[in-house]
């Protein structure tokens, strides 16, 4: 099979129903391209973690509909984990062991050289705390150690569930940069779940959006933006808007006035903003502010709020 045609993760019509019949994953067909950073986005309770637990074999799934690099997950457990690193929900750690020993557990289970432990400690910045017991670690340190345990086998596919959890802003940026580096320099495929759009937007090449168990979208960021018309609206505020309302709506037929007496302009392209501004100023309209509407976020909030 030609690798370029194969997805790193592919599911076809994935379903999962909890006891008492609540369907948490509904016909989800994921296609995570190789060497992508795939953001798996959805509000809390959308089915993200359940999906991740399914594609890591943590939840029993009768049909054979999950494929990792074209190989059936069901038929290749546990060998398939050879090239997978996972961090699911809260990091899985042995609280009575030191950070270093937690990593050594993985090297033993994978028959690896322990030199790798020191490399990983450096990557996640825990060299100085390696000897301390994990139960003394802060939430962020635990999160970083969990990340380290996923990275330890140097896997070609990383599956990370909410990796930014518990990290401070600097830590979040660090992790983000690390993931981008791993993807760009080493060609790793990274599957991240998150409920934060901003986070995904800044890191991912691809994304999938899940809501109430249904996959609402998947594709590149650009495709999404195109889909929902990202950057094609500006909101303009004026002083004394009641005075200018009629004037503006007559001059620009595409404008709608909001209840707050802001004016929303539909654009053909981004350059149009300058032209509109010029026309308004020339007409003597006192423009107070111009804001480019972030359609993605609005769309996301709107979609996930009901």
């Amino acid at each position: 099979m030609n690798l370029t045609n194969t997805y790193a993760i592919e599911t076809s019509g994935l379903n999962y129903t909890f006891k008492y019949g609540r369907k948490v994953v509904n016909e989800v067909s994921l296609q995570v391209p190789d060497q992508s950073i795939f953001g798996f986005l959805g509000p809390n309770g959308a089915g993200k973690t359940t999906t991740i637990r399914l594609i890591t074999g943590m939840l029993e799934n009768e049909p054979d509909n999950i494929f990792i690099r074209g190989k059936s997950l069901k038929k290749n457990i546990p060998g398939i984990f050879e090239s997978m690193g996972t961090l699911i929900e809260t990091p899985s750690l042995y609280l009575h062991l030191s950070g270093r020993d937690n990593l050594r557990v993985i090297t033993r289970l994978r028959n690896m050289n322990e030199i790798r432990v020191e490399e990983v400690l450096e990557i996640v910045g825990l060299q100085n705390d390696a000897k301390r017991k994990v139960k003394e670690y802060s939430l962020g340190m635990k999160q970083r150690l969990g990340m380290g345990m996923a990275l330890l086998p140097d896997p070609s596919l990383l599956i990370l569930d909410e990796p930014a959890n518990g990290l401070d802003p600097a830590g979040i940026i660090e992790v983000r940069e690390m993931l981008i580096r791993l993807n760009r320099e080493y060609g790793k495929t990274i599957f991240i779940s998150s409920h934060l759009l901003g986070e995904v937007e800044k890191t991912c090449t691809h994304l999938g959006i899940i809501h109430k168990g249904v996959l609402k979208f998947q594709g590149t960021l650009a495709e999404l933006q195109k889909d929902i018309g990202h950057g094609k609206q500006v909101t303009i505020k004026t002083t004394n808007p009641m005075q200018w309302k009629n004037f503006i709506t007559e001059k620009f037929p595409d404008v709608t006035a909001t209840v707050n007496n802001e004016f929303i302009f539909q654009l053909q392209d981004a350059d149009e903003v300058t032209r509109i501004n010029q026309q308004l100023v020339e007409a003597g309209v006192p423009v107070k502010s111009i804001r480019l509407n972030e359609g993605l976020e609005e769309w996301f909030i709107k979609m996930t709020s009901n």
Partner: protein
Amino acid sequence: MTFISDYKKAFKAEWLKLKGSGMFWLALIMSVFIPVLYTLALLIQNRSSITNVNTVNPWKEQIVNCFQGFGSFFFPIFLTLVVIRLTQMEHRGGGWKLIETQPVLKPALYLGKFSMAVLVSFFCIVGLVIFSLVGGAFIMLNKPAYGFSQAIIPFSDIAGLSFRLLISGLGILGIQFLFSVVISGFLGPFGIGLAATITGNILNAFGKALWWPWSAPALTVSNPDGSATGKYLLHYEWLSIFWMILALWLGYQWYQRKTFKRAFFKPFVRVAYLLVPILVFSFLFLFINKPVQLLAYGKTVIAGSIDSKEKIQTAYLLSEPLFDTILEIPVDKNRFHLKTEKNIPPAVYYFKAGSMTAMRIFFGSNDSMFINVMSDGKNSKFTTGGNRLPENEFIKKNFQNDSYQLYYLENFSYEMKPDVFAAELIQQWRSETDKIDNFKTADKLKPADDFIQLQKKLISLNFLKLADIKYARTFRIYHPNDSLKLPASVNEIRKSVSYNDSSLLGYLQYREIMTDYFQQSLKLSLSNDTAYILKAVNNIPSGSVRDYLIYNRIKEAIGRTRDSMQREMLILNYVPLISKTKIQQTLIAQHELLKSLHRGKEAPNFYASALNKDTFSLENFKGRYVVIDVWASWCGPCKVQSPNFERLAEQFTNTNVAFVALSVDDNSWSWRFEATEKSFRVLQLIANGKESFLKPYGIETIPRFILLGPDGKIINAQMPYPSEPEFEDILKREIPGLNIY
């Protein structure tokens, strides 16, 4: 191959996880607790704990006691805690999802973790052995009289017991592992373990715990010597392994499929995963629990070895009660092997070699028996093997129908109405016969049917006697106008045995029961020997029971009578009434022996050792009066008399009088322990070969006090006890110029 390499990986990872888990501390604390407690108890205790007449190795006793203290409760709880700790480290930190997303086979992970539990248990048992031995070393330094320094540490026994204890814990480990994996909390599995352990202890107390996995360690430590037939494991240890395998299988299925329903019911064919193993287990369970009856050997063979410094040329098989020789067994270079065609009715006999205490064995034609005797001259120890092994173990355990309930029935039956008495009698009789029916050795060996039948007859006879004599008599007293009618249910006992069962004649127990029966039914007078004998002769048919009655009476009378003329009369008039010449001869010999102990007769010589190991004989006391206190460390009445004897020894300090305490202990350690604390005015000796001393002096009971003259002749071979003033009077009368301080 993948499984093995994966298992290795899992094992290594699990080993790392033990670090800092507190597991070694748990094992340490658990293993140190009992040895420390037991050692302290031994150190504080003021008297010898070694009163067993057979050789007791104090090291072994130390180990066995520590194991017994540890096995029944601490060990199961420890196993429960180990498994909980091992699984909690996964439950709490979310470790399951970590190890399950590694390229390692799940069964390898499951077994890798389980192996850690076994390993930690192993460490705990090793710790228990080490601390027990350290405790023993501590006692050795502080209490030399316990004899630790003279004994060799029985390492192979210790290894065997340790191994069996570990095996006996596997069932608990497996089952607790099942629960601890599927239940994520601490309290659930701990509650199960605790409740099951307590249940096990309760079941054990009723002797009904042979299948309950939490009882296996208790059963193992209660049989510290293990199999008598040389097997590595006893049946409940095998059962423990089966439990482990079953629990690991079911536990793994459950763990892998997350819920019980999904593991065994969904889809429905998975029921096979549950039922097939349970079926196989049940089959193995029944197979391993089935009692085995050994078959008769077909030839009559008695063989074995005698490990002793004594030169023994012949060993004897003797019959009760007169010690008739049934077999003479030639011994060559400490070994013997005799095949005989002689008809030997299956019964209890005595095996006697040299000066060692005779051993009771059950033996008969077509039996093969192996006897191993170990003796260091003073202490001896017997082990037996062969097809009568379970019978002999039953005898050794001294199962007798003297339960508390029976005692109650015997002594308080006067309060009962006939139907109540009969119901109670039947119930007790059933429980006693059940006891012999259900008797099994640690190896699950069951006595042969002939033995069971004989024992049951003896039991039935005892109960019948109780109804016919004792109860009938009390009934007559309380209801002089009514005639006793026992309910028909008592006939059930009557059917199983009769008073004239010739197959029982060879049994001492039968003769004792019958003596009792005749004494009570004929109202034989114990205060008048002549009347007793005459009435017995007139009312009891001639035979061994009658002989036995007369023999006992005469023997008792001549032992009691000081007047030699009167003894002579008894022998002349009544011995001829006994039908067996052999029994007649025995009584005459006894009479002759008593005559030889008369005043003025030459005192029989004997050899004895002092605390400093010097040897003494009568020769050493020539020219001095000798006052001898015959005693043993296990003899309570002796200890009551000893202080009086010592008081006199300290009063009379004449150099021509020697006060000697002569012990007939088998266990020289116990003797040494007691003797070292006694008055230095009394010379402490232990008989070299107690038989060669007891027999010529006609001593059958102790304490016994003997006075010998300076010419080596007997003055009084049966002195009164020193607590009586007469003792002192005799000394003053017989020994001229006795000083009083």
